[in-house]
């Protein structure tokens, strides 16, 4: 399993919780019924709590995620720049990129939209940006681990899309 697995586990736990709660609600239909008025008076109080809980979760998620947005601020674009040019169905890439220092990939395309997806030596997708014609996307990164990094196209670009790959070394 790779680094994204905590996301999968979190999702599965949430899905299981939803299934259990909704199954428990469904099961109450075999119990003696209650009037709708009785159910809604309790239900609306619960709903208020549910709203606050979801609101709090959203605020926490925003507070954690917003500062971690990957979009390069001018200060973070100060590292060494490497040009990446995508075209059907290959990448023009640097052969090697330094480890432990800030680098910036300046990514564009000669023809259609492509995706510049970087996979670390363990096969985890660690960063990506779109490669677009007429535009240059700047992807700031700092590699902590040396090794062989694979690049895959992550935006559907035509018949040989699945075979569009490249690679570079981090030294």
């Amino acid at each position: 399993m790779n680094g994204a697995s905590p996301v999968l586990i979190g999702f599965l736990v949430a899905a299981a919780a939803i299934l259990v709660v909704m199954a428990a609600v469904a099961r109450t239909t075999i119990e003696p019924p209650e009037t709708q008025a009785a159910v809604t008076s309790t239900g609306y109080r619960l709903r208020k709590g549910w709203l606050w809980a979801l609101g709090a979760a959203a605020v926490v998620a925003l507070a954690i995620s917003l500062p971690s947005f990957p979009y390069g601020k001018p200060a973070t674009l100060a590292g060494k720049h490497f040009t990446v040019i995508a075209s059907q169905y290959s990448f023009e890439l640097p052969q090697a990129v330094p480890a432990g220092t800030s680098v910036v990939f300046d990514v564009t395309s000669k023809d259609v939209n492509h995706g510049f997806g970087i996979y670390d030596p363990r096969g985890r997708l660690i960063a990506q940006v779109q490669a677009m014609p007429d535009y240059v996307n700047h992807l700031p990164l700092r590699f902590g681990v040396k090794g062989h990094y694979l690049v895959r196209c992550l935006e559907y670009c035509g018949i040989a899309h699945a075979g569009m790959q490249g690679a570079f070394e981090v030294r």
Partner: protein
Amino acid sequence: MSSARRIMWAYLTTGIAVFGLMVLVGLAMRMEQAHWVTYDPGSFYALMTLHGSGMIVALALCGMGGLWFIMDRERAMDQGLAWSAYALIVLGVVAVILSVYPGRFGAGWTFLFPLPFVGTTWPNWATGTFLIGVALVMLGWTVYCMQLLGCVLSKYGGLRGAMGWDLVFHHDAFVASGRPEPPPAAFAALITAVDGLFASAGGMLVGVALIIHWIDPTVAIDPLWAKNLTYLFGHTFANLTIYMAIAFVYVALPRYAQREWHTSQVLAIAWWGTLLFVATAYFHHLYMDFVQPRGVQYIGEVASYLAAFPPAVVTIFGGALLVYRSRLRWTMSSMFMYAGLVGWLIGGVGALIDATVPINVSLHNTLWVPAHFHTYLLEGVTLFVFGWIFADLEARTGLVSSLATRWITGLGIFGGGAVLLLGWYVAGAASVPRRYAEQPAPGPAIAAWASAGAILLILGLVVCLIEAVRLARARTIETAA
């Protein structure tokens, strides 16, 4: 059968027929990825294009027919217009099919300019036929939305009445006036119409530009502009299939629970939120376009989060409350509708995870994307549609399906569906890219057990279809008798 009901069933049966065909196309794609069958990548991407565009239109047709029928009972609508919208969409579907076979158009249903014009392997006429087909679908959709909007506005006293403004802000005076509040389904109709027209305007703009470029390739189009409008239309149109179908739950589930689902102030406000956030959440499709203005990336994440509140807090919670300690009769219809709420919620969690930008970096355009949208389309919208179809059949015949039939159907559709969906989630978390005819490991191994799940799902769908036909025939016999 009344002429209004005939219109609904024309939409529903056409939608279901296209849906069935697209399920088989989807299975063929998954089996190719599992190496169970072999065909060339050109065929795979042509099937992918057909599957994506066909499925969205199939579910939209089902939602449109049912919602039209519901609102027609509130205020009768022009049937000629409804048939015109239907005819335009069917013509569009035929054009899209022709572009794929024999045309082999394979750019995907939300292709990104300049893809269909550069380095392609299909003839130029196929590109034009696909573009014209989609334009016809959008035209039919526009006609439908305008008719729906006219119905809602005229019935409930303009936009102010249809939105429940006085119900929310002048509640006591509104109640004292004795004016009826719009039923929950009317909010679904209003938001479908307004957001639908908004999306259609964007879609038409880029669609016309693409057709002009097809005629005269020297006419330039900005790729980022085209990408924004493509996703504005694609995201919103796909989302609205859910909001159309939720009207079925508002109308039918209370009948089975022997309770009422009335319009409250909270419900009205929730739908205002849906109106706004469905139209602005599409920016999350462009998170990896760093040249987008940074502000819209923030809007994308915030709107995606907020879009979850109305369903989670009002509609799905309200559905659970409706069922809780009720005298609910479990039939095929009520089972599908309730299960659809569960699928919508679980798919929503998957979508929220993907809508979080730092996580999206490692999930964007991986199989996590089809994982979550298949969850709320296949185990949400589709189940609402099935629930609506069975609600009509059960009401007209007085018959319900046996417990064994419900179990077999449930095992196939929910059990097989879970296996199929889990394959995408696991593969997405393992960084396997989407839209790959040949996937890197562990894609093919996961695709194998996902294909087995898909086959189980199809068996459940077949049992469901046989049961629907049995009830429909029983109705025919009763009518004849």
